[in-house]
């Protein structure tokens, strides 16, 4: 009875809002917040973004707010998740802001009450509702893809794969590099989507292709740029593009089957040692200015609607992508790691 009334009233509300929302009122960057952040003088930013983007973002924030140092703690999302759990178990509270390429991580963090709700006016107005937690505990920072790519000096465009099925062709055996879902959130998310779409049998066949196994989704771009392997099965697409724009012979392929889509949520931790600097960092990164900086540097797809995607990159809407399902990733993560390790032997 009561449930029905709730549902009915939800239906009357504008899109994205919910009756039970615990989100705090949206804030703006006030001089008081800046002053409090400056007193802390430091913010620990745990992220899985490639260092070539994460460190410049940190330096830009430091330039905007002098006196607040950003310590970038970068490793694979799955490692970050493990590290944060291990630190919490030992009562070490170091993380201020966490930014993972595995959106599923935010579900247990939120459930355990580890996240501090924080919403800015810009987030509330310019970030689409489906890219934010209704209770305001996390928000998508940016979106990227896990794309196939190849080195054009090693593979001619007419010989290039068009999609995942093509990668099973014996002519590509020993020529591919691939990252690991036990390390990388991008690859964890991508593996879930691919297994859903193509089945685990696909990975069993792929494993017979003598694939060079690296850890981070940021490494396949570097391996094909160096010419160590001709084709990357997966990897953070923005790094392929950045290498290409630097003049390296790299071509991105959006698979005919679909390309895995990865959002990168970000959250302030409740036990943050520098809570004000943490809020200021999140507020700035989600502002038009912060989002523009990330887009200009890396061309990842912004979460803030006011910021346009980078010129020269294909529009996200024009690419056939898989659907991201964090709840499913959370449920299947351990099984995905175990199955993957069994198939690829590492």
């Amino acid at each position: 009875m009561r449930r029905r009334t709730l549902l009915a009233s939800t239906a009357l509300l504008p899109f994205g809002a919910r009756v039970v929302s615990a989100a705090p009122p949206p804030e703006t960057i006030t001089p008081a917040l800046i002053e409090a952040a400056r007193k802390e003088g430091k913010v620990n930013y745990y992220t899985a973004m490639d260092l070539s983007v994460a460190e410049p973002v940190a330096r830009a924030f430091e330039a905007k707010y002098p006196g607040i140092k950003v310590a970038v703690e970068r490793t694979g999302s799955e490692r970050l998740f493990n590290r944060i759990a291990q630190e919490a178990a030992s009562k070490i509270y170091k993380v201020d802001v966490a930014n993972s390429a595995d959106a599923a991580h935010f579900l247990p963090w939120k459930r355990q009450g580890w996240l501090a709700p924080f919403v800015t006016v810009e987030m509330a107005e310019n970030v689409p509702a489906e890219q934010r937690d209704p209770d305001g505990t996390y928000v998508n920072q940016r979106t990227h893809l896990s794309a196939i790519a190849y080195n054009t000096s090693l593979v001619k465009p007419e010989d290039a794969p068009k999609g995942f099925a093509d990668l099973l062709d014996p002519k590509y055996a020993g020529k591919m590099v691939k990252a690991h879902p036990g390390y990388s959130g991008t690859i964890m998310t991508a593996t879930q989507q691919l297994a859903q779409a193509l089945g685990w049998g696909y990975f069993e066949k792929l494993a017979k292709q003598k694939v060079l196994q690296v850890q981070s989704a940021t490494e396949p771009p570097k391996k094909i740029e160096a010419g160590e392997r001709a084709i990357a099965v997966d990897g953070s697409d923005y790094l392929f593009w950045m290498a290409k724009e630097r003049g390296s012979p790299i071509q991105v392929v959006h698979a005919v089957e679909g390309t895995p889509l990865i959002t990168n949520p970000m959250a302030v931790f409740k036990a943050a040692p520098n809570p004000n600097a943490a809020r200021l960092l999140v507020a700035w990164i989600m502002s038009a200015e912060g989002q523009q900086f990330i887009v200009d540097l890396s061309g990842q797809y912004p979460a803030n609607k006011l910021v346009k995607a980078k010129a020269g990159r294909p529009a996200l809407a024009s690419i056939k992508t898989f659907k991201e399902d964090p709840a499913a990733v959370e449920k299947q993560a351990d099984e995905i790691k175990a199955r993957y390790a069994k198939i690829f032997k590492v």
Partner: protein
Amino acid sequence: MMRAFDASRPVLIAVAALLVVMIVLPVGWLVVYSLSDKDGGATLGNFTTLFTDPTFVDPLITTLIIAVSVSLLCCAIAAPLGWLVARTDMPFAKSVRTLVMASLVTPPFVGAIAWEMLAAPNSGLLNQLWRVLTGMPADEALLDIYSLEGLIFVIACYTFPYVFILVANALDRMPGELEDASSMLGAKTWDTARRITVPLALPTLLAGALVAFLQALNLFGSPAILAIPAGFHTLTTRIWSLFQFPPKPELAAAASLPLLILTVLLLRAQAMALGRRGYAVLGGKYGEPRLIRLGALKWPAVGLALVVLAMPLFLPYAALFNSAFSRVASRIISVETATLHNFRFTFLELSSTMPALKNTFLLAVSSATVGALLALLIAYIVARQAVAGHRVLGFLATAPLAIPGIVLGVGLFLAYTRPPLTLYGTLWILLIAFVTIELPAAYQQLSSAFHAVHPELEEAGRMLGATRLRTLADITAPLLRSAVIATWCFIFVAVIRELSAAVILFTSDTKVLSVLIFDLKESGDVGAIAVLSLVMVGITTVVVAAANRLGGARNAGRLHARAVG
């Protein structure tokens, strides 16, 4: 007149208690965990898994194959080279000896990364060079470092120096008389070498083979860098993988025990091999060994030595230099393409660089100081038989030798992530790990130095009314100055290159240089790795050089030989 209070008994008890805590606590927790299930109930299930699950059995077999191959390969290289250096008139013998020892400054995981730059099948510099020289097609490779053979080769590169030093030192000390007698009786030079020199050197070679076996068995860095891309695990990388989410410390503990037990057994075997050498070469004074004239083979011998030295030294450092100044590691730099991008990135952008350098330096200095002092104290108590029960201390101080770095890391993690001593997340846990790992070598070094100081001097001090500790501080320690400095340096260098325990124990606040390099490896940032590795080796070299100046070159040099243990 009141006699000054002699603090030696309380000191002995305190030191013994400290050592027991340092060693028994982590090993005890390992045993407890290996016999527990996830909820803490008693079980043998972990061991059943260990010996039946192929994801453990395969790494175990692989590890044994690697250890045996590395051991054989090291002997095959070290024995002839050691003989050339110690027993023949090969030109530049002294420089060759110094350079082999210098190659030990390279952390094995840095060596592995450098060899990846050289011999990755497609982008490796040597493969590219070979293609240019021979016209080999682009998809073929001369060398493939991502293979079992590649891994064995790289481990051997940084293990054979240990065997070389043992062999060369033994050959130095071998009496010349036996060889003289042999040649007087009409044997040819080569016959003498074959029938006298080789049998006399054999026990040392056996001991060297065991040292190499142990190194290869317990190494973490090189396998982590080369085996995983190649699609296989060794036991150490498998143990480490158990710390990924969701962590399985019970299985990690169980998987650590075979390493521990195997190491203990092999150390016993090594002691026996070295013990047997005793009757052959000890006793009385012998003449200097005669050097065999190589004649026309002189220069081929130098050539051979240079080729051997290229593997751990010349080639890897050339690759590191190239990649430090290159935007893409696989491109050979020229004056036009050389860039400072990697230096700018490492020192101006990368936020972990400075904290990691600071932590590393702090830990290296404090571990070296604490370790050298502790070793000095124990060596003194044992050498002068200061108190009853001194032998136990000697045993305890050598015991950590049997604990592989990664096993100690797991044990310390289990011991110090719980009250009353929650040290995880502090630099203390790393300090304990490093002091424990380096104590045996430090103790052995200082205990042999004590034998060179005559007790009469100390007795004089004692007769004049000084306590034992005071005598130690005022008389013995200054006499041992060079040995203490050399020991300090040895620990300093070893701490800077330690990875296997640190990779289990670090947190974001306590990251050290070796772990930072490993992190960067996983994201493929080789340019920054090259810069940091060169910095790391630079610091190490400066400290070793300074120590040689302060403490006398011979001591610091000889130290490395014993460091292996």
